[in-house]
């Protein structure tokens, strides 16, 4: 970001207006959130809704406090967070590497094309039983489920980005006698940074899908476990509380990715 010095009155006005709009939007957003929570609580207190099946904000807070007091809150959060982050990193890295490999070798790309297409359209949850039988229950199977959900689509997206690189630029490098590795590092990769950021943003959402799905299949701890368990014993407070924590975690992780995006974009300035 360059330092912008207000040069004219009009420009200062323009800036202050932009700032006011921004503040206005944030206030409205907070307002909407608070009134929804308030309304929910109000309906619960007045008995308009049944808190047994709808829960309510105050009960969610109490539930979270109870789990926290039992010392298990961090266990559940860290279990799920760990699985989500590991799955996210492995799938993104593996998918991108696979895409590079397929870009490198066109014959391999043509051989594998139909397999990848089929794998991509297969609902990964169908593989649940197989995963459990093959790798056993526990973290490994959850992470594997998570990785499977993301890796194919990551490969396909990045491969499309790599292959779509402007031919003129490749020709330019070839006119310098560049080898394939140089074409990859100097052109193909930096040219696909925007697509990579897109993949990060998609995966940061998908990894929660994969992790929770994995925890539904089998788990002894984690937020997905709490949700399943809460559902089984008909404790909606527990289900809602876990969902709220999940929302917060997803938001935090999304902002982490947005921050990474900023750093990458700064580095490549576009």
């Amino acid at each position, binding site marked *: 970001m360059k330092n912008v010095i207000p040069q004219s009155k009009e420009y200062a006005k323009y800036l202050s207006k932009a700032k006011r709009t921004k503040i206005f939007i944030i206030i409205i957003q907070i307002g909407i959130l608070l009134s929804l929570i308030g309304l929910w609580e109000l309906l619960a207190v007045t008995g308009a809704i049944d808190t047994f099946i709808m829960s309510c904000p105050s009960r969610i807070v109490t539930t979270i406090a109870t789990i926290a007091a039992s010392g298990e809150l961090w266990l559940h959060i860290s279990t799920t967070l760990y699985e989500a982050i590991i799955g996210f990193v492995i799938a993104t890295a593996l998918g991108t590497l696979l895409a590079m490999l397929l870009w490198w070798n066109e014959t391999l790309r043509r051989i594998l094309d139909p397999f990848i297409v089929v794998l991509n359209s297969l609902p990964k949850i169908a593989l649940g039983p197989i995963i459990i039988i093959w790798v056993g229950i526990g973290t490994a199977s959850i992470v594997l489920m998570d990785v499977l959900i993301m890796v194919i689509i990551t490969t396909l997206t990045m491969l499309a980005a790599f292959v779509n690189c*402007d031919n*003129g*630029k490749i*020709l*330019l*490098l*070839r*006119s*310098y*006698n*560049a080898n394939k590795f*140089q074409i990859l590092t*100097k*052109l193909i990769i*930096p*040219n696909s*940074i925007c697509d990579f950021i897109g993949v990060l943003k998609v995966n940061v959402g998908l990894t929660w899908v994969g992790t929770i799905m994995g925890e539904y299949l089998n788990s002894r701890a984690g937020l997905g476990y709490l949700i399943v368990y809460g559902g089984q014993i008909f404790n909606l407070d527990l289900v809602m509380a876990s969902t709220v924590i999940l929302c917060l975690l997803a938001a935090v992780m999304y902002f982490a990715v947005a921050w990474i995006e900023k750093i990458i974009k700064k580095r*490549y*300035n*576009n």
Partner: protein
Amino acid sequence: MNILELKNVGLTYFSKNGETKALDDISFDVKNSEFVSIVGPSGCGKTTILSLISGLLSPTKGSILVEGQDAKISNKIGYMFQKDELFEWRTILKNIYLGLEVQGKLSEEAKLRVDKLLQKYGLWEFRNSHPSELSGGMRQRAALIRTLALQPKIMLLDEAFSALDYQTRLNVVDDVYKILREEKIASILVTHDLAEAISMSDKIVVLTKRPAIVKSIHQVNLLDIPTPFERRESVESKKLFNKIWEELQ
């Protein structure tokens, strides 16, 4: 002295849809620091000739010698494309370093040379800008410096100015012409603009339609007029224009 010689060069493209004979029999040569233009009907194989000279393609028959050496292994050739092909994620300076980086020639000496070129050709203040912050003409000049940084003996220009608007184009042509003459680099220009070819060249090679052979070679005697812009106005160039125009019909 001939810096480049094409002898009976032929090229056939092979693809799934069949074979295309692009060049039948092409022979011409380029002297040291000579400026040669290639003109011919669209699709007759002009770009193909430049690809062959730059070593991006190998001829199906005949030979191409750069200073007596096979073109495929020579790296004395600079290639300027129709689009400037600057990388948006690199600054102008880093863009200019690209070829040097690839060839492992990014020495302190080379950097100094680039600095001088940037100053000489008016891009010094913009060395840390990104391509999108430059005008079309400036971008094309940056692309030229990127090529000059490698100290080519021969410069290939494929429609290098046709992405520019007419006004800019006339100016850039004068700029590039001056630079190439100053650096004493032999050049081969491919263009659809016959007037442009005449205004810049010492020699014009006219091709037939595909599969191309050399139809005729014209010497241009306008060296006493300093800039391409002024040459466009001369009677001599207009005469030559009409003559080549007839041939191309």
